[in-house]
């Protein structure tokens, strides 16, 4: 019963909080309308996410906190590179990151994280889904950059989508 009414509790929670934040007015009416959306939208969109992998809440929040912190650091690092590094001493490189993650959702989150954090943009995925092509702004040691991305983000994402 509960499962049929709330097929995707995380999405429901997200929709309710998005609605309250968007209206920017915390009253009962707002919350009620938000709850209506939070219940109805997941029920009607269920056909579009058939094999959703379960995500665990606590590792997801830890991951989010680490990523937000890294985004702030990334901004300072990229700003420093732009301001103080000459084009001659810059070592841009293509990294090929082998993927241990298998579900499309997990790979999407991983690729977005790479794009948002220190000097890396994810550019492509291999047709077999086993490798990610990443461009790095400054990677004197490409192998070490691949390892750091894998241990810092992918290992934690495997905990989230287990």
């Amino acid at each position, binding site marked *: 019963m509960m499962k049929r009414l709330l097929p995707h509790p995380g999405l429901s929670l997200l929709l309710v909080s998005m609605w309250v934040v968007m209206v920017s007015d915390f009253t009962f009416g707002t919350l009620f309308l938000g709850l209506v959306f939070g219940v109805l939208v997941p029920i009607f969109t269920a056909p579009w996410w058939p094999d959703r992998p379960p995500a665990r809440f606590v590792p997801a929040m830890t991951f989010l906190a680490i990523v937000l912190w890294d985004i702030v650091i990334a901004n300072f690092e*990229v700003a420093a590179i732009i301001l103080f590094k000459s*084009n001659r001493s810059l070592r841009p490189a293509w990294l090929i990151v082998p993927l241990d993650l298998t579900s499309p959702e997990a790979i999407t989150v991983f690729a977005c994280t790479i794009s948002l954090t220190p000097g890396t943009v994810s550019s492509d995925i291999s047709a077999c889904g086993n490798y990610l092509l990443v461009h790095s702004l400054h990677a004197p040691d490409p192998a070490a950059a691949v390892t750091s991305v894998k241990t810092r983000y992918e290992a934690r994402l495997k905990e989230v989508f287990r």
Partner: protein
Amino acid sequence: MSAGTLSVADLVVSGLIVLGSAFALIGSWGLVRLPSLMERLHGPTKATTLGLGAMLVASVAWFHLVEDVWTTHELLVSVFLFVTAPISANMIAKVHLHRLRQGEPSAGEGPAGTPGPPPGSADWATHEAPHEGTPGDFIGD
């Protein structure tokens, strides 16, 4: 607010706005001075994120400290930015890879060169459809 006096709120808000503009400016400078398209992609996707973030915090601080209301719209702006920035960067990168492969003379290779194919028999997804039974394969959906 009376003219001539400077409150803590003014200092906080103006400090955040200056920080935000500084980052936006650095990001745009990166767009001008980095060597090729793929490097230039890094400036606007990163340095401006914090620039916009600082602006949004300044907006929240202003409405809370001066107007005495809580606004939360800024939170949504940053959420949508975080969701959309990687996708537009990815699209630009994919177009660039495609142009490199086509050998278009205006597609500059850049100091990183052209990426080689991934290990194994498959090519990158920009040049080849996803294989059956892999993530992102829509066959049978």
